């Protein structure tokens, strides 16, 4: 009987997406996606470098808060200035809010003066679910050895109000700073906030 329950549980685990999850302090799962120019990009391409993953949906008011106020662009620029790679990932399914074609995403990034290293398209949500990305924005920091060192929200003010950016602690910049100083990450996991990722199904 117990065996049967486990078989059932295993079947359920397969059927319910979003159960896969990356553990902080362990090796981050590798993935391959297509960027806005049709090039294939793998996480393993950036071995030895710090990588930031950002989940994106242009229609989400919480994403708009950080792009509208220039906060996300500033964070991207600061990260890249420190030698980090910034991958923005869109897991919005076709027909859902925030889904974009490569050309649309390229145009939007130019218009908003966003500077990710690459903008990646994940319309089937495979990588999003593999990382258990739940909200937009949802951020992950991976160090040069491929270890996941931070996952969660961009900062500690879970609102959609631009005025709240000024007084907030930017968890990503804080983690990058601590890594550069050779210190352990003081806040390694937070609860992400924003709109739910618009997965297919």
């Amino acid at each position, binding site marked *: *009987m117990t065996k049967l*329950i486990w078989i*059932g549980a295993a079947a359920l685990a397969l059927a319910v997406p*979003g*159960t896969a999850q990356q553990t902080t302090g362990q090796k981050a799962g590798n993935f391959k996606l297509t960027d806005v120019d049709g090039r294939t990009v793998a996480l393993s391409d950036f071995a030895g470098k710090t990588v930031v993953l950002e989940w994106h949906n242009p229609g989400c008011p919480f994403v708009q808060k950080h792009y509208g106020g220039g906060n996300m662009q500033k964070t991207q620029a600061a990260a890249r200035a420190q030698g980090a790679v910034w991958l923005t990932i869109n897991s919005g399914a076709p027909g859902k809010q925030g889904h974009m074609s490569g050309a649309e995403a390229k145009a939007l990034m130019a218009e908003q003066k966003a500077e990710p290293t690459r903008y990646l398209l994940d319309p089937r949500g495979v990588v999003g679910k593999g990382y258990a990305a739940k909200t937009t924005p949802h951020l992950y920091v991976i160090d040069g050895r491929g270890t996941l060192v931070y996952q969660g929200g961009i900062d500690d003010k879970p609102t959609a109000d631009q005025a709240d950016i000024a007084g907030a602690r930017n968890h990503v910049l804080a983690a990058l700073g601590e890594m550069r100083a050779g210190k352990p990450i003081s806040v390694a996991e937070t609860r992400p906030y924003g*709109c*739910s*990722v618009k997965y*297919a199904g």
Partner: protein
Amino acid sequence: MGGMRFSFVTFLCAFVTLVLASPAAAQVPGNTRHIAIELIAETDTPAAGSEVALAFASVPEPGWHGYWKNPGDAGIETTLDWTLPQGVTAGPLDYPVPQRLLIAGLMNYVYEGPFAQFATLKIPAGLAPGTRLPVRVKSDYLVCTDEICVPESAQLETVLTIGDGAIAPARRARFDRWRAALPKPLGSEATYQVAEGGFRLAVPFPAEAAAIDAYFFPASAGTVNFAAPQAVTRSGDLLLIETAASGAGGPPIDGVLSVGGGRGLSLRAVPGIVAAGPEHAAEIDWASALLALGGALLGGLILNIMPCVFPILSLKALSLARGGIDEDTARGEARAYTAGVILTCVALGAVLLALRAAGASAGWAFQLQDPRAILILLLLTTAIAFNLAGLFELSAPGAINRAAASGSRGGTGGAFATGALAAFIATPCTGPFMGVALGAALVLPWPLALGIFAGLGLGLALPFLLLGYVPALRRRLPRPGAWMDRFRKALSVPMFLTALALAWVLGRQAGVDGMTLGLGAALIVAVGLWWMGRRQARGAQRAWVPSAAAALLALGAVMLVEREPAAAAPMLAANAQPFTQAKLDQLRGEGRPIFAYFTADWCITCKVNEKSAIETADVAKAFADGEVQVLVGDWTDGDPALGRFIEQHNRAGVPLYLWYEPGEPGPRILPQLLTKAMLTDLPGR
């Protein structure tokens, strides 16, 4: 003259208020909010030094939802920014029991219909009556559909005036309704354990208390994987929830255990040892699964003689019996028919399970608790019974006849279609026979549940399968003849009995009035069908018209029938009476000693006290000798009047034990754990 001046002043005040209020209304940003929120105080005239409850009465637009304190995988908790007069303080926001909403693998804890959050204001003492206390609050919250999310902000205000604290009856009723949706404190502590990625929670919960579709809503992240299914087992006085963990655990966790019907219990769980699902519980599951499977098989078998399936089946069966069909064809057709039936049943079952998984919390048994569902079943079974008795004929629509006929010409495709059709048509008839088995299917893990639906299909297909594989049976098949008519009429008797049983259930649920209404509706349907039968006998065109009209009329009755308020008939200790404030006052006036206790079905401490102390012979004798009157307050449904009484004694919930000694001004509050000696010592001191 004085009266006139008064009304003039009133008019002036109203006018000024209107003028002052309109610009404020115009300032509402956007005016297109997706949740309409009204800030309402339980009393507009609270007394100085008291507390007053404020409700945020919220109505989301259709298709939109607001969020619980812990919004789940995504979403935001409501934040409040108060602007309060000097000395007034506001407590935290209390949320009603939430609902689950699973969207694309992400779990949301939400409100999809109207809901009310509460906050309590403390009014400082020493304020003069008539003092105006303007209360302003900015509420920031998130509102979403399945597709999009909008953060909204509402500026709400109300003005309180220091007065006598009187509460208008209409407003009290509204607040009582909202309060009923708040989780009640469980009282006893739960235990949880995180092991090998699994989260196990053991909640003390009396074995006899009902828990429909139990679910644990954790109050914060980092405890359980919100989207993972929760397996619920009950073993004696423990309710065990097993799901996937997220995080390592450690500190105590808070949450709400929902127990069905919008009711919930707030609880705190401390880390400890929680045994995995007990083996004997698993065996009980297994046994009930087997029982349900047997029930499903039998139910499917019975469906074969249902008037909606019988005509199709007899056509098929007789086509086989006529002979001239070789062994292989007969077997092939039997297999195809069986596959059609089983696949359709499993598909229908999967749809039902998917609906439930998507958050629709109503199960099969739950529907049968609705008197309207019972009445519809009553009308259906009455019509079926009269059909069997020969009052009228059921002429199947053309499409069905054609499909069945193509099947009778042979070919496995046709047989498969006939099977699917038979299963599809049979499902509305499953109600009275399949209730138990389907109910079991809904609480089992889904692979087993689908097995039960497959069992239903197999049962339905069984006679035809046997006919296909056993040539002797085909040869024994009786020729169609007058016997079939007699057989059918005999079958009407059990059908009428089913209708009778349903009428009884209806009477239990909706009272004598509801049952009379139901029987009246059945009479209307019967007359309509009789008329239809007469027209059929004459060969009239559109013979069904009178019966359709009658059915419409009868369905009108369905709209009228209402559930009777549940009679308060809990199990009471000897000579105990239900608690009411009036009864208490009356008995105290008579100068009798009174033992008043407050209990709920879900309160394990209450049940232990009742079994080990209150309901024992010793205590009954001591109370009888001392002429003690026992009053019992049952708080299972969260009766607001009782809730207020309990609150007055500085308790958030049950158990509460009070002893009123004649001559003393107030009651003595007894400890939450009672002993026999403690109670027998009370009278005569």
